[in-house]
């Protein structure tokens, strides 16, 4: 196991055989995996769409994409690639590089992020690509249903109700100056967390992150939605052949996020498409976190004639989960599947790096998934479900 001493906050270092240090407050983590064949760096910035004023909606995503565009060719020369992740609370980058070039690649990305500005050409290319992507999304009923749910939960005029990745129309209106202003004000080292995963020397990785991020001992301050979320209901009528049902169950800041994640998995397993209920076409259950806790977001797509029955079924499923504990056997089966799902989700080093960065961002520490799952109990699952507030609800479907 690698030494944790670094002179700046170290969240956790684990190496061979999954050994890991006791987590300590901080904003960086290095997960040394000597047998790996690639190195991943994840950076999360406390600059998601939840921070955006009305006249800068979608700008943080465009700024992040501009940075990625600025360095793409130079990263390519180092055989490295970078991806951007948008969200309400944070904007993220993941870098994937060969072990031989990860350090110059990481330095290149972090310098571009914190020390320089993208050129006009990079901004133009990023804007064109992002606009094209968002334009397709803007037209889909699925996107409308998601926005309807966010409006029901956060309120129609809340910045949190806007699509976290922006709208094409908004993105098209920004110039390079807007992007640089956003980068200077929000994309700063003090708002960043970072994690490195792969065959690295922990000391070298920590030195590099320390150089780029400076003092990482203080955690980031998470944004809180204003006004606080509420349990509104929104109905949208569109000429669709399916019905989208959405719920946003709020949970408080002291909720048990790992247990809420398990609950999300349980709902997805219980209500997802299967031969037993062919009228369900799709389900997505996600946990969105922010400074005031977060929300369990459920989206289910069903045949319109079955939608009312499924609406009642989902709400009953959540309600019962908060009342009665699962029997031990059922809980064991559930957690076995859940652990496998979590590990498969984290199969790549870039997924593990992003997961570690997210944990640092929200929880100021890092735990490997198997340890976190091992500590779950039927009672924790029940309490997590019981901690959920009244849901906001949105329906999009035909008349």
């Amino acid at each position, binding site marked *: 196991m690698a030494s944790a001493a670094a002179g700046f906050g170290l969240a956790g270092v684990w190496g061979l055989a999954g050994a890991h240090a006791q987590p300590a407050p901080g904003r960086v983590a290095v997960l040394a995996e000597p047998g790996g*064949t690639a190195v991943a760096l994840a950076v999360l910035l406390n600059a998601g769409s939840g921070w955006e004023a009305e006249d800068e909606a979608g700008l943080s995503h465009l700024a992040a994409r501009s940075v990625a565009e600025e360095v793409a060719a130079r990263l390519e020369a180092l055989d490295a690639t970078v991806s951007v992740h948008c969200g309400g609370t944070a904007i993220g980058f993941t870098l994937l590089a060969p072990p031989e070039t990860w350090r110059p690649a990481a330095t290149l990305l972090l310098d571009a992020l914190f020390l320089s500005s993208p050129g006009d050409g990079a901004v133009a290319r990023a804007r064109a690509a992002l606009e094209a992507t968002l334009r397709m999304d803007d037209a889909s009923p699925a996107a409308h249903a998601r926005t309807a749910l966010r409006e029901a939960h956060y309120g129609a005029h809340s910045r949190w109700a806007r699509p976290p990745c922006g709208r094409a129309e908004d993105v098209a209106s920004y110039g390079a100056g807007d992007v640089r202003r956003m980068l200077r004000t929000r994309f700063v080292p003090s708002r960043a967390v970072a994690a490195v995963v792969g065959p690295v020397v922990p000391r070298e990785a920590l030195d590099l992150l320390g150089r780029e991020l400076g003092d990482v001992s203080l955690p980031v301050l998470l944004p809180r939605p204003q006004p606080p979320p509420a349990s509104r209901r929104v109905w949208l009528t569109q000429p669709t052949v399916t019905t989208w049902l959405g719920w946003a169950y709020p949970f408080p800041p002291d909720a048990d996020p790992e247990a809420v994640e398990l609950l999300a998995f349980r709902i997805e397993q219980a209500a997802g498409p299967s031969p037993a209920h062919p009228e369900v076409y799709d389900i997505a259950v996600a946990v969105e976190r922010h400074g005031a806790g977060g929300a369990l977001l459920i989206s289910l797509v069903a045949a319109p004639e079955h939608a009312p029955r499924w609406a009642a079924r989902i709400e009953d499923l959540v309600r019962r989960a908060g009342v009665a504990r699962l029997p031990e056997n059922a809980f064991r089966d559930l957690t076995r599947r859940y652990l496998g799902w979590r590990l498969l989700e984290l199969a790549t080093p870039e997924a593990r790096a992003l997961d570690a960065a997210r944990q640092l961002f929200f929880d100021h520490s890092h735990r490997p998934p198997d340890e976190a799952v091992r500590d779950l109990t039927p009672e924790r699952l029940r309490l997590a479900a019981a901690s959920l507030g009244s849901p906001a609800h949105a329906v999009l479907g035909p008349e």
Partner: protein
Amino acid sequence: MVRNRYGAGRAVLAAAWCAALAAAAPEARPQTAAPGDTAGPLGPVAVIRPAGGPLVVVREQPESRLVAIRVAVELREPAGEAARILAEVVRPRLESGAAELGARAAVEVAPSHLVFRVVGPAGEFERLAALLRRGLVVPAGTTATALDAARIQAQARAAAELDTPGPLLRSLLRDALFPALAGSQGGETGPAPLTAERLAQWWAATARPSRVAVTVAGGVEAALVAAEFEDWPAAGAARDRERGPQRPAPQRASPPAPQVVYRAAGLGYRAHRLDPAVLAVAAALLERRLARSGIPGATAELWWNGENRALVLLASERAAAAGRDGQAGASLRERLEAAIADMADRPAAAEVLRVRRRLVRDILFAARTAEGMAEVLGQMLDRTGEPMAAHRFLAALQRVDARAVVTALRALGRTQPQAVEVAP
């Protein structure tokens, strides 16, 4: 095409390699890796032959919380009806059994192998191995109805694979390049109808330890893997039937009519005596050249398995219509042939260096998951019969220079390519 597929969970060195067919694996395989073979970016592997068991190759990754198991069963003749039906019989049990353990399973019918994959928590390794051992049999109680259902699923899957021009073009070209290895449509068990009993006999004769290779990567110790695969697969009752009656070369059934909107053409150059690493670099260079010269979407691929090797170029008329190579009047085939000649005349040492670096990178990225590592090692093992083939290929790639590429391309340019075409 040695193309990176590292976006998805399963690593694939080169999609087209799946279209190639394996030479017979040697019966006597090394029990341990040769000295010096274990170094390199893919890391050390343990090569074991458990008592009465298959060849087992293990890449221990102690820090990994996942384990991937890949079982490849070499078929005695190109995959036909029996292999496809067996895959459908086994698939649901394997998938549902894996799901109960929080794992994922897949079954693939490759031209020369049946491949079974599971990936899941390393802590479940013994159960996953048991699932594979139990799952890879024809259940004694398989009814005629169940067999019919599996047959229909197998036919639908095979038809779907040829429903679009790309796979059909590759299939036609593969048959043209390697006619002795053309896919069987008649069933390996002979002309009689396939019953559950006959399927079980065929499988018992096929899945013998000498024809099975198990590749494992992830958080598990090699000794444990070896113990799990001792005396497996059990010798079936059909040892004496290992070689079926000699039959004439199988005839391909007419493929389904694909959804062809544009004419597409393929050229295949047999390259049996050329170094696969050189061919891989040449293919990547050609693909870049084709894209730059105005045939976007055209692919250059290395098809390789054992001694069966070819460099293949594929393109559609739609892509070529947008061409900027000054050959608008030339046929698609002429333009593809010109690309080979052009590349052979213009070696670019710096570009060779870039391409070979990129190929190495793609393989390492593909191997960055336990599942990907097992796939990289297993695919190369299937192709060559050598447990360390992936390591050697990576090392060979790093030695390829411009002169070797030019020599190979000139040699190919002097041969007559196989040409196939699909049209609306």
